[in-house]
């Protein structure tokens, strides 16, 4: 029988930056308390890659996130959108104010705890960056902490569980975008590119996806039954290496981007006012002349 795949999807709650949801104070600073938390939009792409792997090979997908207890809702969102089987929240006061380094240490401890208590991991999926921090560092740092290979900018993915290898297409951006095909052994980190498109060209895959959706609907209704929360003791983490104390990065200040001064002046003109329209024509005349010259040249 063909082997199955156990995957973890790393996700993060971020402020909902969508129009109407986000709230800024007078100085342009984000008002965190007034802005709802949602799943990082890029993570949805990572989740789609995890779902594609799950549909094709069977197995198990778990969601994992570090954050305050309220992040359970973010993981519920992950379950609803891409059908994770269960979710793990790494949550502890000691973890507050972690930078990417401390977060990576914590997440790697989460993955190790998962391996010890739940099962061996084949793949870890993560989005390419979060909408709030925009560092793109946490995934690679966590892979480094686990000493597992990492494949980034993945736009297409094939997994061979029996050979314990994956083959991925990477989008390499440059003067000319190129697609690079790489292979890596499992376990492996996969950072998906926003261009990633899952592909379901087999009827059986679509039927499986449909079945998973139906099963998930029931599961998500009792999300708490499928959520495990681990604190720093569960994770066997020394408080000195995590949270604010374990974070070498200091964000000294956050400045709002100053608004560019408007360089144009607008004048309102009533189109039914003939005199005003004459003025408009007068204004446009020099430009119209230019166009006419141009046209003559083209005509030659």
């Amino acid at each position, binding site marked *: 029988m063909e082997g199955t795949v156990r995957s973890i999807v790393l996700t993060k709650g971020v402020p909902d930056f969508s129009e109407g949801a986000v709230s800024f104070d007078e100085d342009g600073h984000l008002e965190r308390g007034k802005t709802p938390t949602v799943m990082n939009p890029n993570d949805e792409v990572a989740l789609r890659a995890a779902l594609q792997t799950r549909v094709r090979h069977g197995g198990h997908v778990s969601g994992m996130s570090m954050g305050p207890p309220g992040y359970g809702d973010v993981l519920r969102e992950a379950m609803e959108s891409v059908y994770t089987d269960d979710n793990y929240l790494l949550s502890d006061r000691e973890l507050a104010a972690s930078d990417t380094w401390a977060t990576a240490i914590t997440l790697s401890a989460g993955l190790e705890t998962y391996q010890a208590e739940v099962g061996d991991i084949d793949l870890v999926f993560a989005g390419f960056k979060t909408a709030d921090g925009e560092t793109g560092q946490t995934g690679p740092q966590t892979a480094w902490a686990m000493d597992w290979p990492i494949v980034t900018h993945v736009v297409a993915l094939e997994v061979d569980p029996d050979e314990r290898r994956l083959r991925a297409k990477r989008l390499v951006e440059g003067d000319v975008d190129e697609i690079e095909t790489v292979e890596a052994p499992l376990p492996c980190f996969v950072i998906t590119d926003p261009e990633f498109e899952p592909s379901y*060209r*087999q*009827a059986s895959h*679509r*039927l499986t996806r449909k*079945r998973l959706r139906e099963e998930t609907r029931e599961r998500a209704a009792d999300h708490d039954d499928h959520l495990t929360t681990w604190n720093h003791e569960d994770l066997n983490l020394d408080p000195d290496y995590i949270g604010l104390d374990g974070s070498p990065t200091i964000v000294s200040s956050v400045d709002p981007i100053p608004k560019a001064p408007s360089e144009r002046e607008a004048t309102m003109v009533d189109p039914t006012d003939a005199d005003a329209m004459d003025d408009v024509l007068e204004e446009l005349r020099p430009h119209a002349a230019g166009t006419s010259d141009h046209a003559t040249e083209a005509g030659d």
Partner: protein
Amino acid sequence: MTDETDAYEHYEAVVVGGGPGGAAAAARLAEHGVETLVLERGTEAGSKNVSGGLIYAEESAPYTIDDLFEGFREEASERPVTDYHIHNVAGDSVKSYELTDLHEHDTDWCDAVLRRRMDSWLQRRVHEKTSETGGGVLTGVRVNGLLRDGGEIVGVTCDELEPITADLIVAADGVNSELARDAGLMDWEEPDEWFQGVKAVVDMDRETIDDRFGLEGEDGVAHLFSGDLFEGVRGGGFLYTNADSLSIGTVFHLDSLVEERAEPHELLDALLTHPLLAQWLRDDYVEREYAAKLVPDSKKVVHPEPYRGRLVLVGDAAGQMQAQGPIIKGMNHAVTAGALAADAFVAERGSADPEAAGRRYANWLEESGTMDKLRPRRYEAVRAVGEDDRVTDAVERVLDSRLGSLAIGNPIADWALKRAYNSPFLISMLPDTRTGYVTLPTIVAEEHGRTLHWGSEVDPPSLEERIGDLTYDTDVGNPHIELRDQSADSSGDAVRACPVSAESFGGGCYRSEEIKRNGTAETVVSLDTQPCIECGTCAIVADTEWEHPRGGKGVEYREG
């Protein structure tokens, strides 16, 4: 099979199309334990389907839809229709007959339905049943042709999936079946083999319906209309009461529409604004949805041997649509055919001959009497005489004369006419000529009718508004119809016959344009498939390369 087709996914049975024919086939296959995959191109079953809106359960039929799907009438249909009237119209003069005897002939029950609600309900039941035997229903998948291996049909090809092989392929892909055409079993050649139906679903709450139509309890009513209100085009109108809406529409012979150069939406409007309907529609007409479909005339196109190799055709795809005079029965025959095809496959399971199931299915269509309903032998005999133009002309001259009016106008004729309308035997022989549709009803109304002394306040939406109210997911840059010949001679009829195009309207699918070239003006036809409602009319009346849009693309009916 060769190595190539061997590598494809295989299901015991693939059913193409999630309408009543496909649903019946799939349900029956699953009940027999057959691994069955159902492929539906709409986002949901019913989103591509339109009917006038009555489904019959016939006493003589081997299968009815409530046999196969428990709870169908309670959960999927609108309301029973037990009262049936036909109105003969001449100007403002109307003579009405009760048609309930004909309606009830061989009828166990009859319900008004709206297809989105009905077919999506069926889809859920079918998915439950087929999931249990290793298959299921997939939506948003368009099957675009047959997969062949060494000339033999072995499966289907799709836009969205890799090819799939199967031991049985059920083409329940509707009136414009691409599979039936791929197999060479059906064509789109002759306008006189088809009707075109156009329908408006009209918003009206239950209380108002019951009040205006004088209904009590569950039972609803059907009204049919014929006579001179359709510019001499052969066909008629209908009105059915639903739970909280009305289905009002027209059905015309396509050749007659083309000949009379009529605009289908204008004919629908002629019905909607007739004073007869004012009593029901009054001044608060709100249209929920405008829709159209082709209707095969089974008397002419039903395929006597609807199979080829592993492929069987059911329902509209096989032309199984019976026009029994004014009563049109299609969905019930699709259900029978789907179930019989499934049973035939199971009976021949393991047979070395891939065509054994198809042959048995065709036999059972005959033996069950279904074929004779679809193509009565009586009609065959009468047609040769009745549809000869010289005969029609002679009959028309007599009817138009004082003598004809006298003959039909006397009280005994009134009694005899009502009997004739209600006779399934006579109705099945009625030739498809002007006489039955237009002349006779007009004279009946003139001689026996009552004059309506009121007008209509109904103001139907324009074609532009109707198109604007429909939901589309346009496949930008990938039109599903190509116009092969732009000349007015080859494709000009589509400008009028297309239900979302008109001579005077530039926003439809088909437009006439005058092009000046080297000093001479020439009229050419252009096509924009964006407003297309996928009825298939232009495949017959114009020179096109016609395909369905990709899965999930194109128009999405909410009512159907």
